[in-house]
């Protein structure tokens, strides 16, 4: 689960990572009061930063520099409520509901990069640092891989001081900045392990003219599977960051991801759901979503799944692909029939059942009198649903 920059920085503070104090506003009034307060306390320059779960906010107009109340009013007006669009938000963009206001009086002489991820290949936390901060790290990794220094961390031993120090020295740091770097890297590691993060990124990690170091930006993702250990982290979830359909699906324990196509899919199993999307794509259709109804596909989950699919206006036809294993296909068919009767299905529906009692299930569907098509295999189903979706457009 991604969290906001301001939330990430609050967590970082708890782990001794140096960050600038910042405050959050959700309205013009709050924003103006905060800015006024900060000017009053002697701060001369600040940034107003849109709080959305996406990078590249600066280029997309989500960050403003403030030197006067006038600047502040203009910036707050512009940013609060704006639809920020860039390659990280997807074409639909993200509405800005919150801004972070942060002091920016300190000059910056150098911008570094520091991040920790779980390295799936070596199955260890991996600390990545670079003297070339402030740029896109994925791009840097491709263009200048040698500019990124790496330190794998043994979870039994933790990040040791000498490892952090050697990285700092290799980054070209000296004097007290080395100590700052040790504190920052060690804090990042402790945060990563103690909060079960899946990613921590500080980019840029800034150095001021007095050799102080602090996190200018912060990106943190948390492992939702570990929330049972840290129930307080659950509260950092911002529902405004997800599409309403995704929230609805999550409430019903459905794995749903909105995509930008026109064919709704309902599948049991994540791998099969992806393979179904791929098959639709093969027949030149575009899936409108990923939807895994899970192992226990019953009437309730299927009903909810239907509602979610149909409430997406871009869906022009629906494909259901269920492989009956422990769940028998005749039961699934009964569920589909009941759910279809409950929902007003106003778009073409193609169903393919396979596995345990598939024939009985298909038979039930065909005899249900519902307006739906059955297919014997995935290829046929996908081809047919794409055709139906196109018919809808051409009609």
């Amino acid at each position, binding site marked *: 689960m991604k969290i906001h920059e301001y939330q990430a920085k609050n967590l970082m503070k708890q782990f001794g990572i140096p960050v600038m104090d910042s405050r959050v506003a959700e309205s013009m009034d709050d924003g103006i009061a905060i800015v006024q307060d900060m000017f009053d306390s002697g701060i001369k320059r600040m940034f107003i930063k849109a709080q959305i779960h996406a990078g590249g906010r600066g280029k997309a107009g989500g960050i403003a520099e403030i030197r006067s109340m006038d600047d502040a009013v203009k910036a707050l007006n512009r940013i609060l409520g704006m639809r920020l669009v860039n390659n990280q938000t997807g074409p639909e963009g993200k509405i800005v509901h919150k801004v972070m206001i942060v002091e920016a009086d300190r000059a910056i002489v150098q911008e570094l990069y520091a991040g920790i991820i*779980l390295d799936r*290949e070596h199955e260890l936390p991996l600390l990545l640092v670079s003297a070339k901060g402030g740029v896109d790290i994925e791009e840097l*990794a491709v263009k200048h891989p040698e500019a990124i220094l790496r330190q794998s961390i043994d979870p039994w031993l933790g990040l040791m001081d000498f490892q952090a120090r050697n990285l700092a020295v290799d980054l070209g740091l000296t004097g007290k900045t080395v100590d700052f770097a040790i504190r920052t890297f060690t804090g990042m590691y402790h945060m990563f392990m103690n909060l079960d993060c899946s990613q921590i990124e500080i980019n840029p990690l800034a150095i001021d003219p007095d050799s102080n170091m602090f996190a200018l930006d912060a990106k943190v993702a948390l492992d939702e*599977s570990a929330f049972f250990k840290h129930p307080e982290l659950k509260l950092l979830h911002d529902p405004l960051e997800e599409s309403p359909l995704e929230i609805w699906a999550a409430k019903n324990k459905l*794995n749903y991801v909105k995509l930008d196509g026109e064919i709704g899919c309902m599948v049991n199993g994540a791998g099969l759901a*992806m*393979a179904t999307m791929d098959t639709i794509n093969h027949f030149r259709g575009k899936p409108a979503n*990923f939807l895994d109804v899970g192992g226990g596909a019953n009437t309730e989950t299927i009903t909810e799944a239907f509602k979610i699919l149909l409430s997406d206006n871009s869906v022009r036809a629906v494909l259901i692909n269920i492989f009956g294993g422990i769940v028998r296909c005749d039961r699934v068919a009964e569920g589909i029939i009941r759910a279809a009767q409950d929902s007003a299905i106003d778009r073409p529906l193609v169903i393919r059942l396979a596995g345990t009692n598939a024939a009985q299930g298909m038979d039930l569907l065909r005899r249900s009198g519902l307006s739906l098509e059955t297919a014997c295999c995935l290829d046929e189903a996908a081809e047919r649903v794409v055709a139906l979706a196109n018919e809808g457009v051409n009609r």
Partner: protein
Amino acid sequence: MSILVSRDSKVIVQGITGREGTFHTESMKKYGTRIVAGVTPGKGGTRIMDIPIFDSMKKAVQTTDADTSIIFVPPRFATDAIFEAADSGITLIVCITEGIPAIDMMKVKKHLKSIGVRLIGPNCPGLITPGECKIGIMPSPIHRPGRVGVVSRSGTLTYEVISQITEVGLGQSTAVGIGGDPIPGTDFVDCLELFQNDPGTDAVVLIGEIGGNSEERAAMFVHDHMSKPVIGFIAGKTAPPGKRMGHAGAIIAGGKGTASEKIKAMESAGVHVVSRLSEVGKTLLRSLDH
């Protein structure tokens, strides 16, 4: 022949008294799996389906001499259950539970490696040697004894493929679901090596998906060490970057782990990559004709 499990496997079910545990224990028992004990702390001394229940793995293993365990406990307790199994003398642990934190798995795996205990999963359907023994939650009837090894990160997708293998008239030596988590206890390479060395396996079907680079590493292994034909399928060609596709491990992160990279790596390693799911069975047949 088979890998990892056979009719001789003696299995303990951890979390046998839970709903899932009881349901699948019955199914496994019906399949012929030797379920010798169950473990649920606080219920030691009782029985379920005539299977004795113990308070601890240690006592269960001491009494029954089991070599394998299958875990159905909730995620909050699953890490501890794995450690307990590892400490008890069990040599193969199959963890069905979904939702174990990745950092915990990292620690689990490091420890298991150091003591030489193998884990399948977590978040996996388990494994089956058709006709001998099922240690998992897969539907029994789709399987048939045979000479094709199957290894997969997925559940129903694997069943789909296994059905195809069975439908084209072949069967499976062993089918292993390694699970969809970012850090699986056993990975493709481990299974490929076992299949390569198993005289009962003629070909291997590998079912991968987006995320991580275990398919790339598998490709390298195939290239360097395998003489048997390997048929590959990768799910998620149309998955967008940065979005988790159900499985915790199925995510294109930092531009890495795309299906096209994996397919490219596998093809150049000599794997018969199948581009459409429906073609797996046929491709397998063709590869065996050579």
